[in-house]
């Protein structure tokens, strides 16, 4: 609960799913990444540079900016294509949700495992439509482009708000806040998950965990 959640909704054609998702996820990550931190002795650090790239979409009239890190791009592409697969295989009415969650790790003492505490969750709800003819596709292509533009502005607005961000860590804590596995860029720790059907049932394991916790509570 103690985290912000933002919801974006898009309606796209099946072949546009991948690009639309990439556009949005990359836009968010662009703002949630920094250059690599180089720590100095006295507890100070300098920040490396981050390059950006313009990416033109094939199926949408849209161009977005992403961090020029191939590794990051690969990871996101992988997640998105999994999502796309799942979406097309689901055979349902093509509603899905992909969420990008930024979290912090908190070290705990022995009996408890490290906690991952999310502080911001972006949920992108996707609605896939089927179009009959080329004309409609053309219109859709433009419309989705416009929509995505609006979304990007939304994202920027949200990010510009002066709200909670994890404090800049010291060298020992940097892994608790940032994903330091990439060579050229350092996004906040993030996790991409997706869900296909509308059913949001809690899984058995969470229920059991809660049951145990509750019986143990004072």
């Amino acid at each position, binding site marked *: *609960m103690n985290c912000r959640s933002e919801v974006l909704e898009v309606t796209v054609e099946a072949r546009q799913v991948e690009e639309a998702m990439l556009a949005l996820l990359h836009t968010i990550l662009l703002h949630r990444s920094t250059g690599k931190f180089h720590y100095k002795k006295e507890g100070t650090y300098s920040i490396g540079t981050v390059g950006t790239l313009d990416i033109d979409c094939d199926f949408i009239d849209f161009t977005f900016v992403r961090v020029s890190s191939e590794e990051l791009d690969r990871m996101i592409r992988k997640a998105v294509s999994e999502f796309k697969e799942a979406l097309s295989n689901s055979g349902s009415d093509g509603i899905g949700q992909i969420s990008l969650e930024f979290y912090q790790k908190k070290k705990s003492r022995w009996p408890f495992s490290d906690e991952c505490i999310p502080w911001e969750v972006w949920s992108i709800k996707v609605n896939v439509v089927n179009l009959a003819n080329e004309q409609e596709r053309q219109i859709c292509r433009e419309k989705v482009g416009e929509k995505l533009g609006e979304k990007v502005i939304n994202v920027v607005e949200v990010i510009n708000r002066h709200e909670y961000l*994890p404090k800049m860590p010291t060298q020992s804590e940097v892994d608790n806040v940032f994903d330091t596995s990439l060579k050229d860029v350092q996004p906040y720790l993030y996790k991409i998950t997706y869900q296909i059907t509308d059913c*949001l049932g809690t899984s058995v394991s969470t229920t059991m965990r809660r049951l145990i916790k509750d019986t*143990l509570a004072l």
Partner: protein
Amino acid sequence: MAHFDTEYQRLEASYSDSPPGEENLLMHVPEGAKSQWHHIENLDLFFQRVYNLHQKNGFTCMLMGEIFELVQLLFVVGFTVFLANCVDYDILFANKFVNHTDSSKVTLPDAFIPMDVCSNRIRDNAFVIFVLIISGVFWLHRFIKFIYNVCCYWEIRSFYINALKMSMSELPYATWQEVQARIVEIQKEHQICIHKKELTELDIYHRILRFKNYMVAMVNKSLLPVRFRLPMLGDCVFYTRGLKYNFELIFFWGPGSLFENEWSLKPEYKRGGNRMELANRLACRILWIGIANLLLCPVILVWQILYAFFSYTEVIKREPGSLGARCWSLYGRCYLRHFNELDHELMSRLSKGYKAASKYMNCFLSPLLTVVAKNVAFFAGSLLAVLIALTIYDEDVLAVEHVLSSITLLGVCITVCRSFIPDKHMVFCPEQLLRVILAHIHYMPDHWQGNAHRYETRDQFSQLFQYKAVFILEELLSPVVTPIILIFCLRRKSLEIIDFFRHFTVEVVGVGDTCSFAQMDIRQHGHPAWMSEGKTEASIYQQAEDGKTELSLMHFAITNPQWQPPRETTHFISQLKERVHREATGVSSDTHPLSLSESEPRSLIANLLAGPSTLASVHFVRDGSITNHAAAGIGDGASALRSLSPISSSLHLRGSLSAAHRAASHASVMSRAMAGSGTDARTVSSGSSAWEGQLTSLVLSEYASTEMSIHALYMHELHKQQSRGELSRHTWHRQESDESSDSIPDEVRSEPKPHSKHFPRSQTFPTTVPSPSSIPTSASAGGSTTMGQERVSSHSGSQRRYSGPNTDSVGPGRKVVRSARVPMGGWAEDGQAAPRQHEPLPEEGSEDEMPPHIHKVT
């Protein structure tokens, strides 16, 4: 070529291209995570734990308590089993002789059965094995819970120490309001909640009481099946811990419950679309849980017994009143609870009402039973007297079989009988008592007023305030009855429940889904008959019954003076306060010939307070010399008044912050006057102001309950008038007219210097209703607000001194220096000992003991 001489020169020391990433880069200093308390994942749980630790008086106390409980359980089970199986009672009772050769003495070890025989006996007895297994599981469960809690609370402990800067040793002496203020304070720095820059008190309450608020609302809207009409017993209430547990399991946290996690309702329950389907699903779940209950019945029974035994000490610890014969029932606690009222607030309120309530119940002794009891007591008493006389004559009588036991039995019998014989000096004045009770419990159905003497009222009240024996009996019956209620009653209500959760859940930013009643929004849930006429837009379905929204709002605003409610709400509160205030001042003028406003339709507070205040003055005049028992009935009124009258002063106290500085000039005079009387150290030590700040918060929190009492009474009175016109007026008038002749103490009026003369009385300061003496000076001032201020300045130095620091603590800066180490309950430190009489705590002293402070009047 001429030599050009220009001003442009080549720079000699050219800079070398330094590789990037070196010294001319911008350097940052990481803030690091200064504390681990920013951004806590589960704030609900976190606040609950912070609250629990505070209620349990710190970590060590909690730890020791838990350990002892564990040991206790082991001991109880072990000892019982031992007594049942390993003792040869024949030897103890000397039915069987031990074949000792050397001496005829029987020793205790003789009566023990040898180990192997004993263990065999235990092994053969299936029931004992069953009990042992269950208690073993129970113990293990407690043990694991204990370990888990120690780990969790250790973290909370360090939160207290590192973030809140409170050590565990001072925790028992800090009020919850103080702790809360610190939490609000540190939110700005640590951001424990990331949604908002600032937390409000209401947010914290909402999180701690999320589910309790739902339960209160459901009981308030009579949604839960806890009232039944049975063929033989008539109207009765059945609400036990087992049932409550099941309700909570079904609604809030059990598998497949309505809530997704601690803070949000599942989205499908928020939509009205498929409510039928959801209702069916819920009904199905209730059925299954009911069946599971039925199957587990014997296990639960044993568990329940263990648990009851085990938690009994806990109950006593928490609620001093529980040592008596009666206790507030579980239903009563739900019915009487305000929205957003924490456990300790409810408990202290109910405990204050306990005496009056049990006195009220004792009014209704059946005359027939009394006659029988008197005679039984007579016969038993004569037998006992003979036996005792014989024993005194020759103690060998004791050696005769069963003499000792019959003496004991007769003694018990007499004691029981005595409880049925009313006190000769007791006067039947239920209406008064009910009023006193109402001042504390704040809720009461309309039809009780004016019917307090009826048996029906008593029966209904006994649903809230039951015999402890009944309570235990219900608990024991619960495993059998609960499944029946679940399957046959609750299941039918599933659709209503679904609707309830859909209609009355709101999502609050930074808090999550809460019960909308708990927002205490007059507009949404106000009841037109409870002062929110015209302000409320609620349909009948949305209105909270019994004025719960309004009273809860007042209660919350009074207990948390720093809370800033939304604008309309503020308006409501200030309006009500002003009215109460005005009427309170009206009272004093009422009793005085220079009466202010007869134009106003007979002020309500006058109704409430006239009796009391006049009584108070009577007490002053007679110097607490009312001893005859004719006054006993009034005594209760007097105690009511004692609880009420400080309010007017506390009203001033809170209302007159702005008047503080004006009052300052009076301070020295007053303190001298007080020093003369020598009792009020508060005033005596007026020079030092170091501890005033802390005192303020403490005193305010004590006044809060009193102030709330008067608001509750006032609202009830207003409600009654609204709904029934002038019908029941006479019940209040009688008393007033009885005393009215005495009510204006001549001395007081004739006092030349009202200020100073009047003042010594105000060591009973809380009790001093703005008394007539101040009227001549201040009544002429006119408007009610100015009157209030005048009164403060003319009232007492101590008040003023409270209002002084008060401005600091309530002011916008909110720089509260809460270094108070004053114990919660009493005033331990000598320098501050005197404010004791400042506790206006509406304790109903029994009518025959005069309030201590009245005795002290010089």
